[in-house]
């Protein structure tokens, strides 16, 4: 296996359809109108020297190396900024051009260290390549004059260094920060010879606004911005394309390797989800896979108070199967179940649900989507007919109005957030519905037209008020509704939504949002012409999560914003494979492809394929499993790659349920919080150690490729297979591709998917079958999956979680850029430097009335429990609302959250908890006890471990 080298065409492709024919060095070439001469030359294999040009960025024309001669035109224009023209005759090489280029290179090199042999970019340096390409043989100017060779390095960023001595001021880093990432953290300071790249106001990288996305490092043509891993390890020698294991954007990366060691992950330009961009997590935070905390040997124990004992894989699997069989013998087949992982592959998830349905003989399978996007599945399934977003990410390029509800894309889905910001800089309008002033509300060259800073828990009221304005002001798209939706259902819904209680004026007091803002936002959304909705967990994690999704779907249908590019309803999925885990039948009521277990015809497909009889009854959801455990009827749980003790709400209830069980099996990379209550630990494998597929938020199925041997000995699918065999199932897959073949033959929406197809196409978006052999980027184009779109009445019902004298504030939770969910991965990387602890964001007024100052320890108390953390006083919070993250187990933010949940799906109401904030002297009793238990629960028997 060699290195994957992507061609750099120097400038971006033209979207024009009209072709222009020209001649370059005697060769005829036809390219789309608007293509640069440089790109046209590259298309026919002619490399024009370049330094400031790269096809990730707009043409700049500063380095003067790509000069060409064009017959009939004066001078030597830069080929990167010169568009092709019909009949143009271009010469890229002649004596005059060679002399000019050598002269330019001579100037560059006269202020550049000549340490090529010891330079970290040796072998991967464009400056070095260009010196060779132009035939530079001498530098006449010497090094005695003014230069930058002694400029100090900036090593403040944990992942890359900045060595200004090697900078040629091509501005590629500055432009990448602006054009690709949209942060504008870098600038060229000074002028002329004094020009230099500067993060922020002459700050160190770490102290600046830099978000460490890596775009500047990737763009740098020299060793000026260089990954520390390359400096330490040297240049990689082979690479493979794989998919990021963090958020639901699903960025493609080249894993660049030396042997079985990762040198770096570089975003892949051909990646259809990220188009060569990345964030600090995917690009740099992969070190957790090799972290010392990782457990690589199976362990068992009789009681959760015992230390762990390392055992062989054979013993661990046999013990687990024996325990599960014993429990079923003593308490019935429904006394056990399992949880699939949204961090694992489709194939692994499929196998876990198969083990439970066919091996355990029940449908007690659930997944972490229960606590994030299960309302999306319900709401979009009911209204549109399928449980997924309607668009591909590229669709945002054609949106005129972007409505972001309960999502924070620049932190939670940063690569798509950058894409969205780019479209907003191009002129699209933005509406943000969020209690916090998220970064997107006002960020360089982006400002929301409307920020509806609603009171947490009033989403349905706000979305219905938007719909009220649209219907009562005659802004609905009746032609679309008549053609595509059920008109009678629309009429009934419109009658409901017209009622005065849904007017902006009526809901203003309820939501805290001025009526004029709601009316303005509604008119803007209705005006479009292309209006797109993007939403996140701020929509779903409520007692009315499903109702809000339904209300959003109503809004899109009422305005005809479905079924073409630039519009749609787009759930931003949290985890890398949360879409896939849902697709693969992880919910207790559905087989893969969202087909109910009571459907005889569907059950027959699996009964034929698997050779067993299957239950037609829905199984238990995660919270129901824990309830049943407390009640004594559920006693065994197989948890693959999920940490319910930290991520799920009302920790005391979770811990109570886990403690009541007789056999909890955790399969994970680390001894996570759930493992504190486990009896068997099966070490898992990282995404770098296995083959498979992930499906991202745009339904895109992409390959995950094994680049190193599993540290624990087995990929996760192999572990599930061993357990299935020990439970008495026949299961003998030799490779995950065989599992995907089974998925394809049993799931209509995946019928055309295979590893072979993915190898050929790179990725494909489901549905992919006979009707859509190339996949489906945009859904519901001619008709909804369910036939006609269904308007459903979604009335606002206030949450039962109420503020009052004891708990006067509302807590809402979320995640930040540098950390990821429960932090199991990112806390074990240098990302910890940006966010070493969870903090409580509180409005200055709320802080002042409590005498709380920025940075002080505070007690956060709710009806469920209390914890302590530091306060961060910030006016980005609305008055009466506080916010924290849940990345650190020591904070135990979910001790605070309640067990209220969505009416339809039991998705927890993380986003609304009544709390009080007061001064604190230190950790609560619960935190102290929990830490003590964690320490005890993680002991590994020293003798047995020898």
């Amino acid at each position, binding site marked *: 296996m060699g290195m994957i080298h992507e061609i750099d065409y120097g400038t971006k492709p033209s979207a024009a359809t009209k072709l222009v024919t020209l001649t370059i060095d005697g060769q005829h070439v036809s390219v789309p109108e608007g293509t640069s001469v440089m790109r046209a030359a590259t298309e026919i294999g002619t490399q024009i020297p370049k330094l400031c040009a790269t096809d990730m960025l707009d043409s700049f024309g500063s380095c003067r190396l790509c000069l060409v001669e064009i017959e009939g035109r004066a001078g030597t224009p830069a080929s990167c900024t010169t568009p092709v023209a019909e009949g143009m005759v271009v010469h890229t090489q002649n004596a005059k051009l060679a002399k000019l280029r050598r002269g330019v290179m001579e100037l560059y090199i006269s202020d550049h260290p000549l340490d090529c042999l010891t330079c970290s970019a040796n072998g991967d340096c464009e400056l070095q390549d260009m010196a060779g390409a132009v035939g530079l043989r001498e530098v006449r100017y010497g090094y005695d004059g003014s230069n930058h060779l002694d400029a100090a390095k900036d090593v403040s960023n944990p992942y890359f260094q900045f060595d200004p001595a090697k900078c040629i001021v091509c501005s590629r880093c500055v432009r990448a920060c602006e054009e690709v990432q949209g942060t504008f953290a870098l600038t060229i300071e000074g002028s002329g010879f004094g020009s230099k790249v500067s993060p922020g106001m002459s700050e160190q990288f770490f102290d600046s606004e830099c978000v460490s996305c890596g775009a500047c490092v990737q763009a740098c043509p020299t060793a000026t911005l260089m990954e520390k891993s390359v400096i330490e390890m040297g240049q990689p020698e082979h690479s493979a394309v794989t998919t990021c294991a963090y958020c639901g954007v699903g960025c493609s990366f080249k894993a660049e390797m030396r042997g079985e060691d990762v040198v770096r992950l570089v975003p892949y330009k051909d990646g259809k989800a990220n188009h060569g961009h990345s964030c600090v997590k995917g690009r740099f935070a992969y070190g957790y896979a090799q972290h010392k905390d990782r457990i690589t040997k199976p362990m068992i124990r009789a009681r959760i108070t015992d230390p762990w004992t390392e055992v062989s894989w054979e013993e661990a699997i046999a013990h687990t199967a024996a325990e599960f069989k014993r429990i079923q013998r003593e308490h019935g087949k429904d006394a056990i179940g399992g949880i699939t992982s949204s961090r694992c592959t489709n194939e692994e998830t499929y196998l876990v649900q198969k083990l439970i349905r066919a091996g355990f003989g029940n*449908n007690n399978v659930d997944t972490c989507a229960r606590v994030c996007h299960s309302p999306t599945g319900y709401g979009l399934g009911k209204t549109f007919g399928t449980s997924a977003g309607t668009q591909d990410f590229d669709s945002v390029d054609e949106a005129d109005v972007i409505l972001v509800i309960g999502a924070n894309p620049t932190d939670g889905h940063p690569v798509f957030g950058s894409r969205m910001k780019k479209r907003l800089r191009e002129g699209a309008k933005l509406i943000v519905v969020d209690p916090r002033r998220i970064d997107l509300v006002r960020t360089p060259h982006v400002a929301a037209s409307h920020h509806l800073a609603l009171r947490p828990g009033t989403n349905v009221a706000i979305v219905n008020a938007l719909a009220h304005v649209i219907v009562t002001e005659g802004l609905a798209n009746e032609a679309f509704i008549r053609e595509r939706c059920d008109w009678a259902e629309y009429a009934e819904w419109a009658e409901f939504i017209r009622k005065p209680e849904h007017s902006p004026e009526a809901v203003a007091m309820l939501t805290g949002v001025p009526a004029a803002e709601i009316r303005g936002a509604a008119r803007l959304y209705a005006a479009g012409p292309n209006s797109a909705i993007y939403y996140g967990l701020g929509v779903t994690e409520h007692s009315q999560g499903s*109702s809000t999704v339904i209300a959003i779907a109503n809004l899109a249908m009422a305005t005809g914003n479905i079924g073409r590019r630039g519009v749609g309803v787009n759930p931003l999925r949290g985890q890398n494979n949360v879409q896939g885990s849902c697709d693969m039948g992880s919910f207790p009521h559905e087989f893969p492809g969202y087909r109910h277990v009571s459907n005889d015809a569907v059950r027959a497909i699996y009964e034929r394929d698997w050779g067993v009889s299957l239950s037609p009854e829905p199984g*238990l959801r995660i919270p*129901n499993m824990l309830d049943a455990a407390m009640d004594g009827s559920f006693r065994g749980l197989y948890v693959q790659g999920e940490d319910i003790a930290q991520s799920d709400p009302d920790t005391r209830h979770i811990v109570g349920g886990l403690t009541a069980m007789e056999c909890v099996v955790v399969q994970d990379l680390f001894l996570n919080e759930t493992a504190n209550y486990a009896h068997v630990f099966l070490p898992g494998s990282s995404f770098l150690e296995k083959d498979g597929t992930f499906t991202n938020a745009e339904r895109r199925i992409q390959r995950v490729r094994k680049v190193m041997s599993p540290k624990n000995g087995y990929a996760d699918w192999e572990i599930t297979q061993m357990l299935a065999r020990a439970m008495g199932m026949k299961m003998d897959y030799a490779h995950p591709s065989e599992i995907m073949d089974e998925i394809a033959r049993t799931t209509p929406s995946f019928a055309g998917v295979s590893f072979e197809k993915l190898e050929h196409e790179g990725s494909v978006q489901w549905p992919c079958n006979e009707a859509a052999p190339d996949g489906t980027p945009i859904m519901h184009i001619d008709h909804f999956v369910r036939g006609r779109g269904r308007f459903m009445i979604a009335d606002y019902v206030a949450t039962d979680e109420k503020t009052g004298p004891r708990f006067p504030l509302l807590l809402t939770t979320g995640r930040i850029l540098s950390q990821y969910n429960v932090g199991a991965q990112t806390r074990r990387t240098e990302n910890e430097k940006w966010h070493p602890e969870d903090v409580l964001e509180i409005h200055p007024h709320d802080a002042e009335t409590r005498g709380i100052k920025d940075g002080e320890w505070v007690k956060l108390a709710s009806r469920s429990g209390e914890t302590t953390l530091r306060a961060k006083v910030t006016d980005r919070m609305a008055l009466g609302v506080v916010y924290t993250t849940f990345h650190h187990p020591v904070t135990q933010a979910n001790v605070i959250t309640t067990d209220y949940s969505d*009416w*339809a799906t039991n998705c927890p109401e993380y986003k609304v908890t009544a709390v009080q904030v007061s001064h604190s002297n230190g950790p609560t009793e619960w935190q102290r006890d929990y830490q003590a238990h964690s320490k005890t629960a993680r002991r590994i028997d020293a003798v047995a471990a020898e």
Partner: protein
Amino acid sequence: MSKMEDRLVYMANQIGKAFILRPHQEAVDETATHLKAFWEKRMLTRILAYIDAGGAGLDEIPRQALLKFRENLPK
């Protein structure tokens, strides 16, 4: 009422409230369909036993919905 029964009653009432604006029989049918599609049988069995014991706190829509299909419950 045990804690589990308390939770089941709460959840059933939540579902009923989601359909409360529908005509009564339709709300009962929708609630019944929802419960049948998503509730595991021990949950249904438990709440039906609770109804038999008086069913205090259970709203009318979910109560009627549960009784509607109790005859068809899996044994």
